[in-house]
Structures are given as structure tokens and as C-alpha cells.
């Protein structure tokens, strides 16, 4: 008899512990804001901020900004939730189960998909209420987080492309200054090749070569209809220019020079020029502090100097329990005060033009990146997102590796995209 009781007790206690753990988990996930339900005067509201962290310094910066915000708003507490691994993969189920952080980073490349899905909170009402000055943001950045005229996020920082060049390599080939146009580039490339050097390294990625297409008057995407326009004839010259440069070995893929991305061969002195964003600068400081390089504006083609901007916003989850407080936090983090801290840290280029001047004073070699945003289109293709990018990248890759014509590449991209969407 005693034995039996013991047995039951053992089993029951295991059960109790495990069910307790399950319940505990459930509560852990939904916390972050059931406090105000009881009374409107609730002392403190806790908000969650979702972010990725490219380095410990980034987390420290956000912590500093949040602390300054908490000081000004004593009844709002903010906890950081740093998502490691694939950000979008982690975010999706959180948004679906309404357990997403109150405000969080959104990258411009998939922003339209989240906006169109209704997972994000429209901000226009709060922008008006709080009198947020949005004209201070560069238009391209603001537009990156608007969908059908509604604002779903405010940019916190930005990046564009510039031409980075290895000074001693250019000098060896007898080139005085970096090319200002792509025609000049082709002449310089010939000189570099004559000396056995690789002129420029860039990946076969629409995220980098799309400015060529735009410069020559083409466009892969129509914003108004949210449709891909690969097969437009105007796209051929830009793509042809890109493919031809690969054929002539003016452009070489980073992979062929033994790197995941162009920064690696550039830091190793294996290539004279690269087209990268401002993330190259801290990378060069770390890996090749002695290499003497310059940063010039992205060369123009056909009299146009389009650029591409990669930007990240703070957006609000529609499921938030405290939209007013979350909006306050969002506006603070994208406001002049917080962005000044960003500018000082030098981690990213602040999105407000009023802060950029101060930023450039401290970090003058970022000028080309800041100027680039004037003629930049955001790196995003509506809700077509990743499918669009995959379709055109794989087709372009085939064009270069298997010698296909630009027209074939474009119709292949179109066909692939169609086959992925038709359901």
C-alpha cells in the first residue's frame, strides 16, 4: 500500500512539475503588457523592443538610447529582446501569435510584405498627435516604409553604395583619380588589367547592380501595380552593361577571389575597386587597418547617378497593448536626440538630414554614402520580396555563367517569378 502511494506520488509530482513548466512558458511569452488592464493610472508600462545586433556595440548603443528615453518617461520601462539567427524567421511566428515585441527593427527589403499583411500598426495618427517632423528624413528612406500611402515605420538609419578604391593599386596602373562615370571606369579597367590586376569585384546580386538598370532608363518593378516589369525593353541596356563587364573581366565575383563578399578580397589587396556600403569601413579598420583606400561617389552612367539605399525602420506591432507609449518610444528612437547618439557612435548613418551634418564632421569619409541617398531607390520590390530577388538573381547568374543574352535573362526571370507565384 505504501509503495503504491509513493508510486502515484512520484508520477503526480513529475506531472505537476512539467505542467508547471508548460504554464510558465505560456506566461513568459505573453508578458510585456497586461498591466494596464486594471487601472488606467497604472504606474509603469513595460515595452519590449525587438532587434538584431550586428555587434556588441550596437546593443550598447540601443541600451544607451533606451536609458535616455526611460529617464524622460519614468513610467515606461523598456526591455530589449535581441533576436539571434534568422530575424525574419523568428519574427513571423511572434507576429502570428501576437507575442511580437511592441516595436522592432524592420529591414526595408521585406517591409512591404509585413505592411501588406496587416501585422504592423499604421503610424500616421500617432505622427500627427505627437507632431513628429518627418520632412527631416530623406524622401527615399521615408518611402521605404510606406505602403499604399500609409506609414508603417520610421527609418532609424541608412546605407547606400559608394565606390571604394585601393589607392596604391590605382596609382600602379597610372590612374590619378577614381572614375566618375562608368565609361571612365572601362578605360581604367583596361589599364588595371594590363598590369595584371582585377579592376572591380561585386556579386551577381540585384541589390548591387540595380542602379545600372535605372541609369539606363530601365526598371524591374512598378510600384503602382506592385508587379515585376522584367520584360520591358528598357531593362536590356543596363543589364547588358553589367553582363558585358563580367564577360570582359572588369567585374569579378567575390567568390572567384575567395571571399563571401567583396570586402574580403578588397581587404586582401586582390582587387582595385569594390561597390559596397558603409559597412565596409569598420570592416577595413578591423581586418586591414594599413590598407590605404578612398571612398568616391558611385560612378554615373548615361548621365544618371542612381543609387540604392538599404534602410532599417522601427515599426510597431499591431498587437501591442500600449500603442501610445510604443509610439512615444518609436518616435524617440527615430528622433534627433537618439540619432545624435547613433551619429556619435559611428555605427550607422543617421536617417535624419539634420543630424547627418554633425555625423559627417566626425566621420568625413562617409560623405559619398550620405550623398548617395539623394538619388537612391530603396532596396525593395513590393510584396514580391524574396521571390523577386531570387528569380532575377538566378537568371542573371545564368546569363553570366552560361553566356545568355540579357533578353533571355529577363524573360527567364519573369518565367521563374510567374511559376513561383501561380497558386
Amino acid at each position, binding site marked *: 500500500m505504501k509503495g503504491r502511494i509513493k508510486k502515484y506520488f512520484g508520477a503526480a509530482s*513529475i506531472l505537476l512539475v512539467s505542467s508547471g513548466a508548460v504554464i510558465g512558458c505560456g506566461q513568459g511569452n505573453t508578458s510585456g503588457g497586461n498591466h494596464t488592464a486594471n487601472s488606467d493610472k497604472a504606474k509603469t508600462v513595460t515595452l519590449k523592443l525587438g532587434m538584431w545586433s550586428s555587434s556588441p556595440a550596437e546593443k550598447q548603443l540601443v541600451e544607451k538610447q533606451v536609458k535616455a528615453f526611460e529617464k524622460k518617461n519614468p513610467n515606461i520601462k523598456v526591455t530589449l529582446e535581441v533576436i539571434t539567427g534568422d530575424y525574419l524567421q523568428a519574427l513571423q511566428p511572434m507576429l502570428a501569435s501576437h507575442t511580437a515585441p511592441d516595436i522592432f527593427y524592420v529591414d526595408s527589403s521585406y517591409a512591404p*510584405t509585413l505592411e501588406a499583411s496587416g501585422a504592423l500598426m499604421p503610424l500616421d495618427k500617432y505622427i500627427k498627435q505627437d507632431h513628429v517632423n518627418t520632412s527631416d528624413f530623406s524622401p527615399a528612406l521615408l518611402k521605404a516604409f510606406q505602403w499604399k500611402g500609409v506609414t508603417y515605420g520610421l527609418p532609424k538609419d541608412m546605407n547606400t553604395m559608394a565606390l571604394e578604391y585601393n589607392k596604391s593599386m590605382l596609382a600602379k596602373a597610372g590612374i590619378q583619380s577614381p572614375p566618375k562615370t562608368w565609361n571612365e571606369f572601362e578605360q581604367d579597367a583596361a589599364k588595371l588589367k594590363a598590369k595584371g590586376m582585377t579592376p572591380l569585384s561585386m556579386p551577381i546580386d540585384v541589390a548591387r547592380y540595380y542602379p545600372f538598370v535605372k541609369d539606363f532608363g530601365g526598371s524591374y518593378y512598378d510600384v503602382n501595380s506592385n508587379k515585376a516589369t522584367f520584360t520591358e525593353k528598357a531593362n536590356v541596356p543596363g543589364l547588358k552593361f553589367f553582363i558585358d563587364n563580367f564577360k570582359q573581366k572588369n567585374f569579378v565575383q567575390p567568390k572567384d577571389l575567395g571571399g563571401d563578399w567583396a570586402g574580403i578580397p578588397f581587404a586582401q589587396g586582390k582587387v582595385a575597386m569594390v561597390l559596397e556600403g558603409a559597412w565596409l569601413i569598420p570592416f577595413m579598420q578591423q581586418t586591414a587597418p594599413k590598407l590605404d583606400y578612398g571612398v568616391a561617389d558611385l560612378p554615373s552612367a548615361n548621365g544618371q547617378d542612381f543609387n540604392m539605399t538599404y534602410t532599417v525602420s522601427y515599426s510597431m506591432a499591431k498587437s501591442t497593448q500600449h500603442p501610445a507609449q510604443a509610439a512615444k518610444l518609436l518616435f524617440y528612437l527615430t528622433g534627433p536626440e537618439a540619432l545624435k547618439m547613433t551619429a556619435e557612435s559611428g555605427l550607422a548613418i543617421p536617417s535624419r538630414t539634420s543630424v547627418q551634418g554633425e555625423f559627417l564632421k566626425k566621420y568625413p569619409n562617409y560623405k559619398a554614402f550620405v550623398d548617395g541617398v539623394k538619388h537612391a531607390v530603396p532596396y525593395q520590390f513590393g510584396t514580391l520580396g524574396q521571390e523577386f530577388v531570387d528569380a532575377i538573381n538566378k537568371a542573371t547568374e545564368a546569363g553570366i*555563367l552560361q553566356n545568355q543574352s540579357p533578353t533571355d535573362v529577363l524573360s527567364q526571370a519573369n518565367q521563374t517569378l510567374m*511559376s513561383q507565384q501561380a497558386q
Partner: protein
Amino acid sequence: MNGVHTHTVVAHHSSRRSSVDQALAGYLFVLPALTALVVFLVGPILYAFYISFQQFSFLDEQSNRFVGLANYVHLFHDPVFLRALWNTTLYSLGVVPVQTALALFLAIIVNRVQGKTFFRVAYYLPTVTSTVAVSVMFVFLFQPRGLVNQFLALFGVQGPNYFNSPTFALPAIMVMAIWSTVGQFMIIYLAGLQDIPDELYEAAAIDGASGWKLTRHITIPMLRRTTFLVIVMSLIGTFQVFDQAYVVSGGTGGPLNATLTVILDLFIKGFKDMQMGYASAMAFVLFAIIMILTLIQHYLVGRED
């Protein structure tokens, strides 16, 4: 008489009680595990099956709708999925036979050689190493001027840029997979080898068999069940290959879809393109394929004599 009778009844009764009790206690003990299994495994599988008949996005619940078999039908018209299936099949055909043969070979050798333990550990080590770490290591080995190409250069052969070549990317991943999992199957074979009675070898030796003949006519047939297990496990593993392809191609399946495997395609569709319904349908098609292949093998290799 009467006393005896009641006694037996009581005994009978109590033994039945106690067996029910025992079963109940048993169920109570497994209940936590069972609950976890149902909540975190069976439940999601059933739900995935349910959404595989829908156009389904996590984020946009309003637009989720029932589409019947459309996801499944579309799969067989989707060139990207078919390419992924083809790559995965090639990968399996390349990896499974080589891996099995190599594992058997190593097991037989390690079983006889001096310093057994050392070799067991040495060959098993890659299996317990993270596949991502292994992939990164192989990315270095297979670089245009990496170790492999420098070795080839000694013989005057100009090696390709493996992971950026549509022809060589998949074979390079195969080599990586064989290297990293062969140890695991070697261990299974080693266990199988212990089970073969020595008398069989002695009897065969008396009959004049030796060397290769012993291996061919005793070791291999006696390892039949083990081989079945190894092939099934290796086949399931190869059809579910993901990490290596993900790391080597940076998550895209490139170059030119050469390293796009079914699971990688599924991952891209589900988490990047947000078509969960379609991705679920893909998972069930893969499940069906693995199931059918396993049944065929069971029929060919695994039957009891």
C-alpha cells in the same frame, strides 16, 4: 473449502487490481513525455497537414483560404521544386552507396587493427562536430586557392572554384557529407560485427575459405540487417540535407540552383516567401517519397529470410 475458495477469489481480484494500477502508474509516468510529444510533434504535424491544403500565411490570417490539392498539383509544375528534388536525388545517389561501402570498409579494418579505440574516436569525431562548423571548414578547403586546389596544382591540375561552379558545388557538398557522417555508420557496423559468431569463421576456415571469401560470404550476409538500418538512416538523412547547402550557398541554393535541396527550398518558401501552406505540402511530398523508398528497401533488403 469455503475458506480456500474466498482466498483464491481475493487473490485473483487483487492481482487484477494491481495490474490495472501498474498500467495506470505507467501511463502517469509517461504522461509528461506523451504530452510533450503530442503538443510539440504530433499536433504540429497534423496542423501542417491541414494547412498544406490551404493558401496560408502566418501574418495575413484573413487571406488564408482552402485551396484543395492546388499546392500539391503546383509542386509538380514548379521548376524550382523539381530542380530541388533532382538535386536531392542526385545527392542521395551519390552519398548513400559510397557512405555505406566506406563505413563497412572502415568498420572491418578498425575491428581488426591495433589501437581500435583511437580509430573509433578519430572516425566518429566528425559526426559530433556541428555541421555548420564542418561546412565552414570545407568552404576553406574548397576555395579557389584552398588546400584541395593547391594539392591538385602539385600535379599540374587547375582545380575549379568548387562552390561557385554549378558542376562542382553539389559534389563538393557530397564529399563533405560523406566525410562527416561515415563515422556514425561505422559505429553501427562495428556493433553488427560483434554479433557475428566466431564459429562461422572457424567453420569456413576449416572448409578452406580465407580473406576476401570470408568477408564476402560471411561478414556481408551476416550484416544484412545492419546494412538495412544504415541505408535507411542514411537515405532519410540525405533526403533531409539542409545545413551544408544553406551554409555553402549563403541560403540561396546557388550557384544556379545547383545546391538547392528540398528542405532548403522548403525553408525559403516557408520563411522567406511566407507561403507556409505550400511549404507544408512540400514537406508531405518529401515524407511520402522517403516512406516509399524505405518500404522498397524493406522489401529488397530487410525481409526476414
